């Protein structure tokens, strides 16, 4: 496209205006960008019109009409009401999405906690502790996640007894190869009061926390904030509980027929996926944490020690806050990876978005393009939201920088 400028053309700054804009770098840059954008749009347009034309000619049904059609298949693990009797493909989508969100959010919390613990342990002066942490990282980081999921799933399943031989505690908690069954709370009349009590308790804890901090700043006295908060919370909840007349009853699981009936069931697929994802991702997070801590100069530790701070407090108040600004950006990528890796659920039978929507729904409706596009958009949106949250947090910790 770019022609070499003709030799005889006058230099642009000699007052002769003709053609001068052609040689203006800004104009040229803009022109290239417009051309590139046009090419991209053209390719997308061609591909989509061609796809539509091909699908029309082959008689493949397209559009989103399937969304409200009855689904006709069942899903075992769900956070919202769903049944093959009355639910639509759209509702199946929400069931899958919520399952993905559940395992991803639980995984993010667990992986971050394990990652920090292992990362800090690896820097421990205790040789055995740091060796064990190093073993953890090298082992879990270097084995493919899918393989780990299979191992967790099969290990979890094989180790557990059949429902009729369940391990049980007080006939209320059961553990077998169908999952862990715990009594499920049933919120009866007046449960709203408990919520009020919880909100009041949190407010009281916040007020006390602020007073304690101020008091410490003023007088140097330390207060047992943790203990007091716990007591406040328990007190308020107990008050609410009796004031509302014990509104919560429990649905206790019970062995009937083949399976345990009632209670709250935590499925082995969920546990295996959660463990696999968290432990795998934590091995990467541990290394990020270690790198972040090592990036804080040794002088900081020495300065803290010379002020008389104990090692634990030095870590917590001096090293980690400074390390966070190094840790957070790569940590974000790991959390995004965890969310995306949760789609491996399909291998071990956990009904996440990919399993339900890109698996069963796609197959029953045959509308591959629609299902894939929706699923991709969902993951894109989830990732962008996670990064947004982490960026906001990053900006807060980055203020520490001088």
């Amino acid at each position, binding site marked *: 496209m770019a022609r070499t400028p003709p030799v005889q053309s006058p230099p642009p700054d000699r007052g002769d205006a003709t053609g001068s804009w052609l040689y203006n770098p800004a104009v040229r840059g803009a022109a290239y960008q417009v051309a590139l954008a046009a090419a991209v749009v053209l390719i997308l347009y061609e*591909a989509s019109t061609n796809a539509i034309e091909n699908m029309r000619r082959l008689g493949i049904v397209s559009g989103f009409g399937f969304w409200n059609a009855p689904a006709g298949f069942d899903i075992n693990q769900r956070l919202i009401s769903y049944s093959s009797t009355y639910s639509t493909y759209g509702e199946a989508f929400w069931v899958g999405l919520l399952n993905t969100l559940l395992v991803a959010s639980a995984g993010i919390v667990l992986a971050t906690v394990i990652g920090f613990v292992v990362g800090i342990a690896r820097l421990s002066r205790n040789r055995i502790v740091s060796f064990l942490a190093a073993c953890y990282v090298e082992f879990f980081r270097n084995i493919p996640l899918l393989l780990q999921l299979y191992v967790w799933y099969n290990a979890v399943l094989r180790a557990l007894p059949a429902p009729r031989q369940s391990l049980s505690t007080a006939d209320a908690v059961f553990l077998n190869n169908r999952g862990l069954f715990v009594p499920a709370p049933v919120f009866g009349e007046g449960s709203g009061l408990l919520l009020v009590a919880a909100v009041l308790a949190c407010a009281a804890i916040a007020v006390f926390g602020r007073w304690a901090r101020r008091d410490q700043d003023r007088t140097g006295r330390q207060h047992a904030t943790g203990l007091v908060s716990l007591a406040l919370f328990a007190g308020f909840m107990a008050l609410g509980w009796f004031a509302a007349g014990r509104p919560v009853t429990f649905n206790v699981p019970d062995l009937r027929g083949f399976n345990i009936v009632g209670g709250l069931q935590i499925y082995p697929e969920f546990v295996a996926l959660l463990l696999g994802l968290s432990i795998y991702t934590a091995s990467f997070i541990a290394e990020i944490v270690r790198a972040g801590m090592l990036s804080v100069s040794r002088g900081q530790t020495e300065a803290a020690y010379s002020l008389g701070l104990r090692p634990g407090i030095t870590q917590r108040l001096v090293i980690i806050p400074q390390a966070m600004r190094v840790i957070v950006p790569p940590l974000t990528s790991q959390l995004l990876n965890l969310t995306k890796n949760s789609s491996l659920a399909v291998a071990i*039978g956990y*009904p996440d978005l990919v*399993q339900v929507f890109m698996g069963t729904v796609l197959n029953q409706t045959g509308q591959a393009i629609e299902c894939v596009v929706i699923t991709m958009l969902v993951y894109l949106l989830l990732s962008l939201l996670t990064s947004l949250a982490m960026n906001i947090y990053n900006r807060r910790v980055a203020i520490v920088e001088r």
Partner: protein
Amino acid sequence: MKKSLLAAIVTVAAFGAAGASAATLDQVKQRGVLHCGSNPGLAGFAVADDKGQWTGFDVAFCRAVAAAIFDDPAKVRFIPLTAKDRFTAVQSGEVDVLIRNTTWTMSRDTSLGLNLGPVNYYDGQGFIVRSSLGLKSAKELEGASVCVQQGTTTELNLADFFRANNIKYEPVTYASAVEAVKAYDSGRCDAFTTDASALYAERLRLTAPDEHVVLPEIISKEPFAPVVRHGDDQWFDLVQWTVNATINAEELGVTKANVDEQLKSENPEVRRLLGVEGNFGEGIGLPADWAVRIIRHVGNYGEIFAANLGPDSPLKIDRGLNRLWTNGGILYAPPIR
């Protein structure tokens, strides 16, 4: 798995033109090899041995199509497809024909841009359970966990059956049959459900096959049929008549062993089948001896069944509905004339 699906969809989207209008037969001839979508591994239907040689009931029909075209049953490339990915592979042109224990349903026939037929195996969905449970009927499965493979009619029939009988159950869904069977074997589920033919095959994979029984109920109609793309009627005809030829051959008593002898037969039906009279191959773009090639290389329907599923196989499945209509079954092919 996800990648191949995506790739296939992108292919449909951008280059799908190769799909329909061009004559599939010419492409296959030019390529010199038939691309046949098959099950990644189902004893009796499609299994690859350690040398990469495919055998099985569905595989035999792929070979029959290749034999009709090339007079050589080895000119097939088998493309293993999961239940989930199989239709996309046909739509995108990745395979010329899909013969993979695929149930012929109305929605698959009418909304996916595909043509199915004719039926090469009449099946129905059943359940396998541990014999120690002492169950007599699937209706006793109240509250049971049932392992099932995803992306199949099985998943829907299961929901229908329990709903119709008002029985509570818990489905546990896996992407592959292997994982579903493994989970059942490890005790995650009380029952495993799939098409009855596959139940017998999958039972062999369990750690103690003798400790499991197949329940008597058949809860659905599962007619298996080959699948091709819309838009190439001649190709669809060729696949249809390949299956029909094997059935007609059995009915007329034409076998692998006696096919050359039968060329001299006086029976007009045999003469038409074998192309001695008339030229029926012309209509499907093949020479007159197309059916002779099929029978010589692959055999008639009865021989294919016996070798892969019946008495000559480890599965020993009864022919049941798949007997010829003259023998009390429902297998019935339109005449060649």
